[in-house]
């Protein structure tokens, strides 16, 4: 075994050991690379990624069923309205009206088809893809990060890792870094898959994708919309990391974050209801509490961007309010995870 002196700290190591830069950021980047490598090699990551793609495709397949039914509906289903008071009707018999002309049927059929296939085309398909990602996809990121953070304790590899040199904060930041990356990859995968599936299924309707909405502003707001969706995933990923660290197990990480995800909207509804029944300042206080919940604030951010992309109203919560609340949550979860890690003895 040949040995060569190293310049750092006067240590002597064999020449086959090639060390990288040992300053804070290079070490952290290597740890993030290590976390990505571990995720890449896990079957669970591949399974979860496959599920996200399948869910995105399935949802758009379901939406395309409507188009399929309209395409296969008989012509009498597209009868024009008898009087000006009623709108176009599908599937309603009009016994007192004269039979519609072929041109009228074709016009109403196209109107119904356009309406039915609307979710398959941009910009609506973007909204649907993101909404699907934020419901089913959030569960998947929680499973991934809960098992990644809690698994180190469940398996026992935390002992191995904490004796290798980097600080516990660096290990935590590496997990947070990989959570950011997973959130970005997940949201982009689900959005792109959904949009592409929608476009492919839209070919059934023969209605072309209009690009009239497309502008630099629209693209900027669409990107912000996607970033907010990533932020939503990232927050739940940090909750999973926090609970995984606190409970020192995969189960704690997953169950803790899922409980948060499902209990928050229920609690919000209860508080709103209780606030409505309790009049006065106390009632107002109860009603105001859900304004500080994660879901309501990410929802507000999405709604505020959505008005530029899809139209609609502005949320009652401002972007600044939502961003401050979410930043406090992130700081609290990451800070508490760090504090627990720093002050805890690693035994078994």
């Amino acid at each position: 075994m040949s040995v060569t002196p190293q310049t750092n700290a006067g240590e002597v190591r064999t020449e086959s050991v090639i060390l990288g830069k040992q300053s804070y950021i290079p070490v952290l980047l290597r740890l993030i690379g290590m976390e990505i490598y571990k995720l890449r090699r896990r079957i669970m990551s591949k399974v979860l990624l496959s599920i996200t793609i399948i869910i995105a495709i399935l949802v758009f397949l379901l939406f395309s069923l409507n188009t399929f039914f309209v395409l296969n509906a008989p012509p009498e289903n597209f009868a024009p309205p008898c009087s000006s008071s009623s709108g176009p009707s599908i599937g309603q018999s009009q016994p007192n009206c004269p039979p519609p002309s072929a041109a009228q049927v074709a016009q109403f059929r196209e109107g119904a088809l356009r309406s039915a296939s609307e979710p398959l085309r941009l910009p609506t398909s973007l909204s649907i893809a993101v909404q699907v990602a934020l419901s089913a996809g959030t569960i998947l990121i929680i499973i991934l990060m809960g098992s990644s953070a809690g698994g180190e304790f469940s398996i026992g590899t935390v002992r191995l890792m904490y004796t290798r040199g980097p600080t516990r904060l660096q290990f935590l930041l590496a997990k947070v870094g990989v959570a950011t990356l997973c959130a970005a990859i997940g949201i982009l995968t689900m959005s792109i898959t959904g949009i592409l599936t929608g476009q492919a299924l839209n070919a059934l309707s023969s209605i072309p994708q209009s690009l009239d909405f497309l502008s630099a502003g629209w693209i900027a707001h669409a990107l912000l919309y996607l970033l907010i969706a990533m932020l939503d995933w990232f927050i739940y990923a940090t909750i999973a990391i926090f609970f995984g660290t606190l409970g020192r197990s995969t189960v704690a990480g997953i169950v803790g974050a899922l409980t948060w995800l499902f209990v928050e909207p229920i609690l919000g509804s209860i508080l709103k209801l209780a606030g409505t029944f309790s009049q006065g300042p106390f009632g107002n206080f109860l009603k105001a509490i859900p304004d500080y919940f994660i879901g309501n604030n990410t929802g507000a951010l999405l709604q505020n961007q959505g008005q530029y992309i899809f139209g609609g109203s502005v949320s009652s919560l401002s972007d600044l309010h939502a961003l401050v609340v979410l930043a406090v949550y992130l700081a609290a979860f990451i800070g508490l995870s760090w504090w627990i890690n720093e002050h805890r003895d690693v035994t078994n």
Partner: protein
Amino acid sequence: MLQENIEASFQSNVIISTSRLTKAFGRLVAVNDLHLQVMRGDVFGFLGPNGSGKTTTIRMLLGLIRPTAGRAVMFGMDTAQQMPSILPRIGAIVETPVFYPYLSGADNLRVIGAASGMVSGKANQRRIDEVLELVELHVQAKTSYRKYSLGMKQRLGIAAALLTDPELVLLDEPTNGLDPAGMFEIRQLIHRLASLGKTIFLSSHLLNEVQQVCNRVAILQKGNLIKQGNVRELLRGSEQVLVRLNTLEEIQQAKIILEEAKQRGADWISAIHVQMDRQGQSTLLVDSPKSYSTEINALLARNSLFAAELHPYEGSLEEVFLQLTTPSVPSGSRQGMAALAGGSSAKQQSGFIKGAERLGNGKGGIE
């Protein structure tokens, strides 16, 4: 000036130094007031029965748990403040090493390499191959870790500890799960590492193994350091002369003669014990420097007792350990039973000791 240089040189050679190191879990004091000193190039044996605080000490040295009191200094740096600078210079196994089950042995080492400051990618493949070959896991390098046997897992732990070619190798029960051939290889490996100037800190139950590889030892009991020193010096303190006679009556006579000689002023006799050897035959062990073998022989011969066998008895670390950690047991019985146990673990031997205690209490025993 010279004194200062000597002091500085000494300090630079101290790899581990603990001072009043204490760890309490609630009311349980796992390690109490520990003063340890491990020098550069030492193969340091860290001994103690189960629950004596060995692993807790190792965990404190590695920063996995924080001391309740006292401090540990490694490579001249305080572990409380400079752990990130200390850890890259250490390779460690703490208890049974655990790795990522979904990765192969080589991939696990790749991950550990990245965590240990080694560059990522293929650059360190040569080193990974080297350490896998060193622990004879190169054939199973690509096999999933979950398919590894206990011995293979232990070897991978050693490979991980050696991956960055550290100055200090800290091994907590490295031969757990290894077969005798595997244990032999680990001993060889430790010798090889020591010859390369590495400092080895070896915690083990296998005293025979420690005696063969270590130059210094510390013995811990119930969290307290009861002995620390050079192995040779410790063994020298247990010098004895073994006397074998033909019958049990002769042995009893010889014992009486030697005890009378001691009472008359033969201060080179510390104690006399009757023991059974591995063949179940009674022998006499005299706590005395080996240079007095001739005097013992002459004394017995003057009383018409002629020894069938008489020679200096080579003490073992096992016996020293048992003497120090089980003070209520007469040393003769301990030695006899240790001999009977012949290389088994300390835990197994405690059963033999209890048997010896019964013999020593006159309930059908020889003594």
